[in-house]
């Protein structure tokens, strides 16, 4: 009944298939402002709810908890490590030449966090709560993307 012993698909009539689509993603009212400020002005923008005062980072045009509008506020972009991992394999499970440290970073002055790389620090030196700051690409090379932040390093 069960065909589990057929492990070579060539034993059966078979067809290959690929889903050939691509997408253009935009970052929205608030996201656009965030990336343009980062690219052109070295600034980090967050959004503060006009009702509950929660500060969203990256910014949003609405507060997800009470659907009030938000106002944009500038923050330093610095923060501290909330959690981290030392990755030895890449996204396709191939060994990385050099392990990468990924951290969730609590951004100062906001209720938000972001995931990014930690560099200029050895894995055994990283501690939860450690202060870190962003290292940006040279202005001329920036594209208005999250990778305009190269990584975070201890501050």
């Amino acid at each position, binding site marked *: 009944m069960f065909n589990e012993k057929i492990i070579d698909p060539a034993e059966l009539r078979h067809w290959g298939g690929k889903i050939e689509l691509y997408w*253009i993603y*935009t970052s929205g009212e608030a996201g656009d402002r965030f990336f343009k400020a980062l690219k052109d002005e070295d600034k980090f923008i967050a959004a503060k709810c006009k009702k509950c005062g929660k500060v969203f980072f990256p910014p949003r045009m609405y507060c997800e908890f009470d659907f009030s509008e938000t106002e944009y506020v500038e923050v330093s972009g610095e923060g501290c490590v909330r959690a981290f991992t030392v990755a030895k394999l890449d996204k396709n499970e191939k060994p990385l030449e050099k392990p990468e440290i990924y951290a969730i970073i609590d951004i100062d002055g906001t209720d938000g966090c972001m995931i990014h790389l930690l560099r200029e620090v050895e894995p055994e030196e990283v501690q939860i709560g450690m202060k870190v700051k962003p290292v940006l690409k040279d202005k001329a090379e920036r594209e208005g993307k999250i990778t305009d932040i190269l990584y975070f390093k201890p501050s």
Partner: protein
Amino acid sequence: MEVERVSGLKFHKKQDVAIVGAGMTTFKRRLNETGKELSFLAIKQALEEADMDLSDIEMVVMGSAPDAFDGLHMKGEYLLDGSGGSDRPYMRVFVGGGTGVFAPIAGYWHVASGLADVCLVVCEEKMSSCMPHPQSAFKYIWDPILDRPLAPNLIWIFALEMNRYMHVHNIKHEDIALVSVKNKANALDHPCAQLAEKITVEDVLNSEPMALPVRRLDVSPPSDGAAALIMVAPHIARQVTDNPVWVTGVGWALDTTMWTNRDLYFPRYVAEAAKMAYRMAHITDPRKEIDVAEPYDPFDYKELHHMEGLGLAKKGEAPILTREGVTARDGDLPCSPSGGLLGVGNPIAATMGVKAGELYWQLAYRAGKRQVAKEVTTGVCQAWGDLMQVGTVMVMSNKR
């Protein structure tokens, strides 16, 4: 269509369900806003109309069609924060194009069961993200072995179906084009419309051929947008409005996946869904008891097809009713007074705004310039989708 009378505990519910607010964004290509932001904008309007805050919402139903449009797997979860779903029970439903009426059906069962007294239903679609064209995504709904190697395009199916419908009932393209003329003109009064215009039958017949008999003006456009509805229990409805609109019946049904094996000229999936909804609403003669209808009109012939499936016209009779003006906004059975998908636009799931949303506005006498001429009590809205085989139907009434 004959519908049996139902008595006893069939379709028993815990409480009645009313719609007390609706909102929608403009339908057009909206590169700037994210799907989350579109959802937020539609919900804000619905909350305002219902005089409510997000904190009044107990549960949320999100409707959005294929993940392939936005290019995100688990799209429902991605859209959650703009959909008001954080920190409350939230679910996404999708049956392709049928989602625009299926999502409010899901909202209905949330409230009718007594699980929620206030349920927000929001539908979103952002088709413009998908490249090279939203149409490309439809390639991958076909059977990968039997259909896909022939490189079909979605318009093919509709062309084949339209061809069969015209052949069986001896219908002329001129009569079908009248639907496009009517709906695009109706859309002139809709503030959210993408393709509102005064056109003629000749314009339709001379427009670009896509897959004959289907021409460009027989078809609704791809679009971006969102729509929202607030569905509540009777004791809440009484607090927030004097004009609630009651959901009196819901129905849905699917025909076989093998679309080649269907009748094509008659949408059985709509007829079965309609019978379920009519039984629940105690409607035995839809032609006499329905005052206003929003049949799903992604193509002009589809409005006619669906009117027949909904039992609003006999088989082959819908084009005659259209020609005689019965389905016009000042006719005896106004159909798509919103302007429909042909006129307002077709952001798949978000067409809830011109189907369930419009029916609510008509029955609440809140449709403004689009308000139909006749007095209305009961109406029906319908959508169609999945692999062209699902019918979703909702009956509403402003009398309880």
